[in-house]
């Protein structure tokens, strides 16, 4: 397998897994009895794999480093809006608000991964943590910083993720 073939294979595998995670996220999001940590865990995995898929494709980035490294989604959100430029023509004010909310949510979602920023922000979607002498399980936590997801701005953000998942092949370099 050539370097290019390997890169493409990993990119396609990451987008396939991100799409599968997204389907599970949507199922969990409909189930009010399921603690929010579970759907947020899936949403975090969607975002991470989505960014990796785009990073792997059409760039010369080191494959093994990308596959093993955590994070990346926060730096994907801004550039991705370039792919939507035509649709937001003449709607700069609307787009400014959307970008700002998307950046905020992307940052909060990235923090849900246990490997990210644990000393400053121990709250995560998978493992119990201790803060100020109190140990908390993710399933007992409300994740207030992500309440925005259920509001109109949050739904627009989820539409953005869905769009990035759907358009992956369409906006690949020729």
């Amino acid at each position, binding site marked *: 397998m050539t370097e290019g073939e390997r890169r493409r294979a990993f990119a396609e595998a990451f987008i396939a897994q991100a799409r599968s995670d997204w389907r599970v996220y949507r199922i969990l999001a409909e189930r009010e009895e399921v603690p929010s940590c579970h759907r947020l865990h899936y949403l975090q995995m969607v975002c991470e794999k989505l960014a990796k898929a*785009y*990073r792997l*494709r*059409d*760039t*010369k*980035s080191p494959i093994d480093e990308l596959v093993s490294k955590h*994070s*990346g989604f*926060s*730096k*994907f959100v*801004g*550039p*991705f*809006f*370039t*792919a939507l*430029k*035509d649709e*937001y*023509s003449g709607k*700069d004010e609307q*787009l*400014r608000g959307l*970008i*700002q909310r998307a*950046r905020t949510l992307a*940052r909060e979602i*990235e923090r849900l991964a246990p490997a990210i920023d644990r000393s400053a922000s121990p709250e995560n979607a998978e493992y119990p943590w201790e803060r100020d002498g109190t140990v908390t399980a993710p399933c007992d936590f409300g994740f207030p910083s992500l309440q925005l997801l259920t509001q109109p701005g949050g739904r627009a953000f989820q539409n953005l993720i869905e769009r990035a998942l759907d358009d992956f092949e*369409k*906006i*690949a*370099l*020729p």
Partner: protein
Amino acid sequence: MARTKDETALDLATWHFGVEPELARVVRIITDNEDEPGEPIKLLEVNAATVATGSVEPFAFAPSASVPFPTTIAEVTPEEFERIKRNELQLPIGWSLAKSQLFERPRAA
């Protein structure tokens, strides 16, 4: 009349300044093969609104109606940009600040 690659790069940077209030500057990376068909417009965007990750992460997008050239964009924080200038942070393979074009944020944007 179709926009040239240089005009498109400027259009794109100007548009980004308009929708990204914390975008301070856009550095267009120019490579020796810049005139080859398919060689993307490459933008390094210095944006205080992004997250410092200690790496430069480019994302590539296909041409569209308003951006009729392939485009690769990476954004870094101002601190990361300073580290790039001090050679403490690596640019993507093939990118260099040595041959680049700087778009500063317009005063009114």
